[in-house]
Every structure is written in structure tokens, then in C-alpha cells.
């Protein structure tokens, strides 16, 4: 499928070139983010009646995983409010580049940490506490505030968006799954970049900032680390950067050989399955173990969680990539075949979220009228009774999502197999078993 250059449309180009629309959206979201922190602190402790829980873990999550990631990839990162205050402080400016840069430490991020292991560790840390995080407003408020202050602190010590690129637990999986999205930011002609003096897309100019994500756009070949901040479109003196509409999953045609990305795929796949079992399954003992943080039952739950995501799934998958000639080929095969788990994992999360979001969706209307749970009725929707939405359609939609994920995963494995000269059958069988397992947990 050929690409369609969206920035070739004058209205889109104008909207992207101007920093205004993006700033307005991000600033409004920042206001909502700060309100969510406040609501978590001062609002009702009843999770399903508190804005922080309902709007972060139901409304935002639904938009992110059901719409933004599958359709726009890192589209959320383009307007995410978390890096905003830190970036303003770092730059000494809110909109256009300042004449004089403020003197912060401006250090390079340590070379040994330039990967997504820390993001994965952060995600796992939150995942182990997720039953409390998803249901307790004050804990959600603490985590949201911690992320905001971490982003500010890192902006004052390190250059660019170190938090987004290397630490954000959400950004890690958005980046992984953004490879499946039908939208990309790429350069138009590589030769223009080779002859371009000063590389303003990376270093910045009076027209805009150097890439906040520490990426040289001329070398972009996949979406994972491009935050769609659009700065390179503003700074490129040759108008050589575009936003394109492309085939779904185009990045998966060039599978990654990085272990940190491979393990991210296992962590996300395993987490979706564990959440489906713990949160949506009928086993009360699992729910209590996940919720009672610090108890022996929780420690066992945490150990099993880590064991499944970091040992069991990668171990079984490794068996599917055997035999290998040496360590290098094993790593290559293991990592590149794991790209099959990217569409599979995304569809697992979509299937999980459909049930979670549609069941609890009516809380959004109620919380909109009474965000703090104080008895308000701002829009007349506070008393809307809880009712699962589209409950008869949930199972068919989940089945469809899992079917698409399986076919997409097997197709990706076949692509890798033709290059690795290794059969795709074992990895396809792994994907089938995982899908049947997820199906059993959900349907």
C-alpha cells in the first residue's frame, strides 16, 4: 500500500506547523490532569465515584487503547500533559524558543540506560500494585503527581524529554504498539538530510526545538521512539518531514532485534492475560491477593506475575525459536520473532479493555456531574444508574479482536521466518495457545 502524505493537505500542514493548537489541547489536558490529582486527594474515597479513577482508568484508558494507539500510534504523546511543565521550565519558554536558554544542567541521559528496560520496570512496578491503583483515588493521585514531578525533575537535570523517552511506564508500551498504527512521521527524501547543514531537526533553530525525543528524524524507520511532537516539521528548512497515512503494522516488516523491546512485548502480553484472569475472572481469591498489598498472598501474586511475564512466557517462546547456531543467532531470532507478539498483545489489550470499559462506562456520565463524589449534579447525570453497555456485543467484539490479533501475529511471524530461515510454525503455535488461553479467560 502506498502512503498518503497527510501534511500535504494544507489545513493539516498549517495545524501541525503552528505550535498553538497542540499547546491548547495539552494545556487543557494538563488542567484535567491536575484536577484528577486534586480529586484523588480531596474527593470521595469511593473509586467508581471519583473523577481521578473514572476519568483516568476508564475514560482515558478507553481512548488510549481502543482509539489513540491503534489509529494514531503515539498520538497521545503528542498532546500528553505530563512533560509540559518540565519542558516549559527546561526551555524557559512556553510557545516559541526563547532568545536565551535558561541554565539548567542539560546533561545527556546515561548511555547504559538508553533503552526501555527502565520503562518496563516502571510498568511492572505499577502493574503489581494495579488493583490498588485502579480502585483507590488517593493512590492514583500519588502516582499521577509522582509522574508529573519526575518529569519536571528530569527536565531540569537532563536534556530533552528524558522522562518520556526512558522512564514513562505508559510511553513504553505506547511506543511498542505504535508500530502497528497506520500513521507515521518520516522524512521524504534521505538525500536532503545528508546535505542538510546543522541538522536543525535534531539541534533546534529559531523556528523550533531540537527533537525532544532525542531522535534524528533522518534515521527514523519505525514509530517506537518518535513522540509525534511535530518539532522537526517546524524546524526542517527543506520541508522534508511529513506525516503519512500508511498500511497498518508497516513497521513490523522490519522486526527489531533488541531484547529490551522483545521483553516489553512479553511483559505486555502476560500482563493483559493476568489482568483478564484477576480483574475479569470469577476467582475472588486472586482479586483479594492482588488487592492486599504486602500480605503473603500478595507476595505470592507478585512473584507469579513476575514469573509469568519475565520467565515463563519468554522461556516458552525461546523454545519456539530453537534450535540456534550460536548466542547471536538465538538473540536475533528470539527478538525478531517476538515482533509477532506486538499485534497479538495490542489485540489482547483491546479485548480486555472492551469488557472493562463497556461494563464501567456509565460511571463516566455520573462522575462528570459529581467529579468529587460530594453530591453535586452539575449536568443532571449524577444519578445515572450503573448499567453494563452493549453487554451482548462484548464477547463477539472480543473474539473478533483476538482473531485479528492472531492472524496478524502469525503473518508477522511468517515475515520474520522468511528472513531468519526458521519455520514460523512453533511461534504461530505459541500465538494460538496464548490466544485460546486469553479467549478462555474472557469469554
Amino acid at each position: 500500500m502506498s502512503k498518503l502524505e497527510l501534511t500535504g493537505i494544507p489545513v493539516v500542514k498549517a495545524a501541525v506547523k503552528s505550535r498553538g493548537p497542540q499547546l491548547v489541547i495539552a494545556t487543557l489536558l494538563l488542567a484535567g490532569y491536575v484536577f484528577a490529582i486534586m480529586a484523588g486527594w480531596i474527593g470521595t474515597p469511593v473509586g467508581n465515584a471519583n473523577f481521578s479513577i473514572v476519568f483516568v482508568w476508564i475514560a482515558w484508558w478507553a481512548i488510549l487503547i481502543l482509539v489513540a494507539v491503534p489509529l494514531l500510534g503515539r498520538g497521545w504523546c503528542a498532546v500528553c500533559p505530563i512533560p509540559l511543565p518540565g519542558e516549559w521550565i527546561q526551555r524557559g519558554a512556553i510557545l516559541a524558543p526563547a532568545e536565551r536558554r535558561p541554565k539548567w544542567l542539560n546533561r545527556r541521559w546515561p548511555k547504559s540506560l538508553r533503552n526501555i528496560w527502565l520503562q518496563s520496570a516502571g510498568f511492572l512496578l505499577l502493574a503489581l500494585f494495579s488493583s490498588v491503583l485502579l480502585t483507590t483515588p488517593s493512590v492514583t493521585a500519588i502516582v499521577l503527581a509522582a509522574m508529573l514531578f519526575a518529569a519536571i525533575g528530569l527536565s531540569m537535570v537532563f536534556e530533552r524529554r528524558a522522562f518520556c523517552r526512558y522512564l514513562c511506564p505508559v510511553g513504553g508500551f505506547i511506543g511498542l504498539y505504535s508500530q502497528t498504527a497506520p500513521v507515521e512521521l518520516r522524512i521524504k527524501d534521505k538525500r536532503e538530510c545528508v546535505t542538510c547543514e546543522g541538522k536543525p531537526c535534531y539541534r533546534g533553530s529559531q523556528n523550533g526545538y531540537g527533537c525532544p525525543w532525542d531522535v534524528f528524524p533522518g534515521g527514523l524507520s519505525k514509530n517506537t521512539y518518535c513522540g509525534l511532537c511535530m518539532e522537526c516539521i517546524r524546524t526542517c528548512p527543506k520541508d522534508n518531514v511529513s506525516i503519512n497515512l500508511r498500511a497498518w503494522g508497516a513497521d513490523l516488516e522490519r522486526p527489531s532485534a533488541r531484547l529490551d523491546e522483545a521483553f516489553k512485548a512479553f511483559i505486555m502480553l502476560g500482563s493483559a492475560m493476568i489482568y483478564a484472569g484477576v480483574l475479569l475472572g470469577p476467582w475472588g481469591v486472586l482479586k483479594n491477593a492482588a488487592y492486599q498489598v504486602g500480605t503473603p498472598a500478595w507476595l505470592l501474586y507478585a512473584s507469579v506475575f513476575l514469573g509469568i511475564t519475565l520467565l515463563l512466557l519468554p522461556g516458552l517462546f525461546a523454545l519456539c525459536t530453537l534450535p540456534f547456531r550460536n548466542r547471536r543467532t538465538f538473540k536475533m531470532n528470539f527478538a525478531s520473532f517476538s515482533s509477532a507478539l506486538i499485534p497479538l498483545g495490542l489485540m489482547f489489550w483491546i479485548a480486555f479493555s472492551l469488557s472493562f470499559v463497556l461494563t464501567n462506562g456509565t460511571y463516566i456520565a455520573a462522575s462528570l456531574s459529581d467529579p468529587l463524589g460530594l453530591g453535586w449534579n452539575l449536568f443532571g447525570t449524577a444519578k445515572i444508574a450503573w448499567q453494563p453497555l452493549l453487554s451482548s456485543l462484548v464477547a463477539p467484539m472480543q473474539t473478533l479482536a483476538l482473531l485479528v490479533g492472531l492472524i496478524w501475529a502469525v503473518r508477522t511471524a511468517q515475515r520474520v521466518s522468511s528472513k531468519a530461515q526458521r519455520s514460523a510454525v512453533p511461534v504461530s503455535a505459541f500465538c494460538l495457545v496464548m490466544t485460546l488461553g486469553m479467549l478462555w479467560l474472557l469469554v
Partner: protein
Amino acid sequence: MRLSLVYGLVLLLAGLVVAFAPLPVSAHSEAATRIIRVEASQYAYSPSVIEVNPGDTVTLQLVSTDVVHGLYVDGYGVSVQADPGQTRTLTFVANRPGSFRIRCNVTCGAMHPFMIGKFNVGRNTTWVRAAGLMLIGMVGISLFPRPKAHEAEST
């Protein structure tokens, strides 16, 4: 091209059959009256999975052992609520086969949105059909030509 079209049509037909064809009725599926005691406590039902046959007249006796709990049956849209120590009953005819979730519909604590059980009416045909579709999908993907990988490998 023609062969691909034939494969595609056959697979589509097989998929439609698996998804929608009526399944044979089990020999033990005579409608009966069933009275089932369901204990609710934070955040589980006991039994956690309720099994009945299609056409059964089901009476669920909900007993709450700690705080106020409810029981809402997905797909049927019926519900009941019980105070601690109180028994409340809900009677309905299980005339829709399949596997449904039962959920607490009274805020009963932090994990309330996840207080879930299962209500199976007959065999879980949804899972069987869905698994069948997955297998058809696997057959389909192996029948069609494999795409070539790009030469360059990104890092």
C-alpha cells in the same frame, strides 16, 4: 488468484458455519427448576460459576456475608440486592444459552467493579465457536502466500 478466491470463500463459509450454525442439544438438557444459594462477600461469589441448562427456571438466593452486595446477570439484565445476613431471591427463566458474567451492582468496596462471577447456561458455546474461528484463521493464514521480509533490520 482463482485458487485464493476459492480458499477465501471456503474459509468464509466455514467461519460463518462455526459462528452461527445451531449446535446439537445435549441429552441432559431437560428444563427444570433450580434453586441455587449464592453467597456474596468482598469480592467474590460462592459458587463463583453457576451452571444451569437452557430453559431452566432459576431461583438465585443471594446471601451477603459482609456488606451490602448485589447480583446482576449480564445478558439477562436482571438483578437483586441483599443486606448482610439477609437472603433475597431472584427468579427467571434461563432461556438464553451461553456464558454470562454476574456482577455486583452495589458499591461494596474498593474492588467492587471487579466482583464478578460466571453464569453458564448450557455449554459455553461462545468459547467453542470462538476457538473454532481461531483455528479457521490459522488454516487460512497458512493457505495464503507468505509475504517477504524487508532486507534491512531496524534497531
